[in-house]
């Protein structure tokens, strides 16, 4: 009974997205029917669906997607490994925050895309350059959310922790601060995955021979608007799926932290 209710709730939540997708396709088809644009400018939805099917069936789409996801995931993981401990420490130590914060505030406004030329020069044409660009895009959202999470722990919780036996700073940090900061950390991880996803597409547009960004850039070069749109749809769908996953984690850890 509970599982069928959960299923119905899930379906009801997904309904607006299906509705949005159907409206987009309908408007697209109507525009094509009314204006009859050249397919190199705006191909009909059916042609794009065919190209999508073709690229999916021959494995090309999966390969490009796998490259993009692997690059984002590795950079995001690297960012998380560095930014979460650093953010927790900065959120707990005013002096450490005073030392590191100026560096963060100076580097944070520089768009990951601006690092692309330097990434090529420093890391060459392999994977490390692209991972570096995504790392820049994912590091700061995780760091800032973690700092905010660590600094924003309710003093009542800290007091309760002390009352319940967390006598040292380390045990208070480990048993109260870290769990209380978790919802913020998950928000940071979610936001970072989104920025990383945007950064990898840009990095692959410039210097890559694989990935969804490359698929789009290549489609543009050879006047294949259908291929460009397939790349865009894949990015949109994957971005949505990842965001949904992180929203689920956020809700789960939010409840757990409470």
């Amino acid at each position, binding site marked *: 009974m509970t599982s069928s209710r959960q299923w119905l709730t899930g379906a009801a939540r997904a309904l607006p997205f299906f509705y949005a997708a159907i409206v987009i396709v309908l408007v697209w088809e109507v*525009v094509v029917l*009314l*204006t009859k*644009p*050249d*397919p*190199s*400018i*705006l191909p009909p939805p059916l042609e794009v669906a065919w190209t999508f099917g073709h690229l999916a069936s021959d494995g090309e789409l999966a390969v490009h997607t796998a490259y993009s996801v692997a690059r984002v995931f590795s950079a995001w993981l690297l960012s998380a490994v560095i930014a979460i401990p650093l953010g927790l420490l900065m959120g707990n130590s005013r002096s450490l925050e005073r030392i590191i914060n100026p560096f963060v505030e100076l580097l944070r406004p520089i768009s990951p895309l601006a690092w692309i030329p330097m990434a090529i020069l420093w890391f*060459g*044409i392999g994977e490390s350059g692209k991972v570096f660009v995504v790392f820049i895009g994912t590091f700061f959202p995780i760091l800032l959310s973690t700092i905010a999470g660590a600094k924003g722990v309710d003093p009542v919780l800290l007091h309760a922790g002390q009352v319940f036996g967390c006598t040292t700073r380390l045990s208070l940090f480990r048993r109260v601060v870290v769990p209380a900061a978790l919802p913020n950390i998950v928000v940071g991880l979610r936001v970072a995955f989104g920025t990383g996803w945007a950064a990898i597409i840009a990095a692959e547009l*410039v*210097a*890559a*021979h694989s990935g969804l960004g490359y698929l789009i*850039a*290549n489609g*543009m*070069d*050879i*006047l*294949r608007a259908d291929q460009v749109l397939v790349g865009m749809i894949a990015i949109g769908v994957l971005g949505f799926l990842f965001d949904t996953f992180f929203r689920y984690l956020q809700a789960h850890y939010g409840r757990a932290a409470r």
Partner: protein
Amino acid sequence: MAAIRLERGAFLYLCGMLPALFASGPAVAQQEVNYGVQPDTDPSFIAKALGYFDPIEKKHNVKIVFREFAYGAPENQAMAAGALQVASAGMGPATIAVSRLPAKLVAINILEQTAILVAKDSPLKSPCDLKGKAVAYPGEGSQQYPLLLKALSKCGLSASDIKLFKSSGPDIPTLVMNKSVDAGITWDPSISVGLASGKVRLLAKAEQIMPIMGGHYVGNGVYVRNEFLERHKDIVQELVTANVMAVNYILCHPKEAAKLWSEQIRIKQEIIQLSLDQGISVYSLNVIPTEETMTAYTKFLKDAKILKPDDTPKIDPSFATKALQEVKSGKTCMETGPSR
């Protein structure tokens, strides 16, 4: 309430604009012929410098405006958007355009124009030595990519046997010089700029990879949007004739042509002269895009998966045929052979 009305008004305005945006189609200015070019040794620059376009402008009350593009892909995008009526680009982008856009190829105006470069002291001796090496190329939309694949396939290699690095054509000689890559394939005059530096050398010329027209590779084509071609056949004819006259001038007066190009595309005269002397860019009066040449070229692009199996390039050799007859009726420097 007023805000809702305003929002609805803006929404309806946007809805109304959307079809108009797509329906606007080609932005053909009434008296402007937008001619896409790239800053290379294109005979169109010589035609312009020698005033071959002036009588066309006067006779038809039009202005021929050169629109410069760094490479073929954005030029094709401009043509797709209807911003160009005529374009001159490498044969790769030109063939892609006439396969996918409402446009026709009317002439082939440069031969060769592509080469694989390596550093002067590179141990590589032929394209077969490229296995496992990093090779810079200007993207899959360029003709350099399928040529590279062809060169590799002759040695039993494929794209997966090398490390491809996409870069802009003019940057490739620098990447080779700096040894950021082991080799690079690019177009002229970037090839000649690299050769003139003395720090790079040729690994293979296009004619060694794919001789397709008079023992040379076809380098550059001129293509025209269909609706412009249908409405202004006479202008198209005169533009093609002006191109063939320019080619004739290049064959008759290579030094003067190099000087004119230098002024037009802002590249040193000696570099352009080197290109002509070493046959990096080659010119021939035979600018007719024949069925035979285009069939072979289309197969080449289909093999490289640049064109889809059902893509068919649209060509109209009648303009180049007539232009060749008109120019031949005057004084020519060479019958049909290349410039060397």
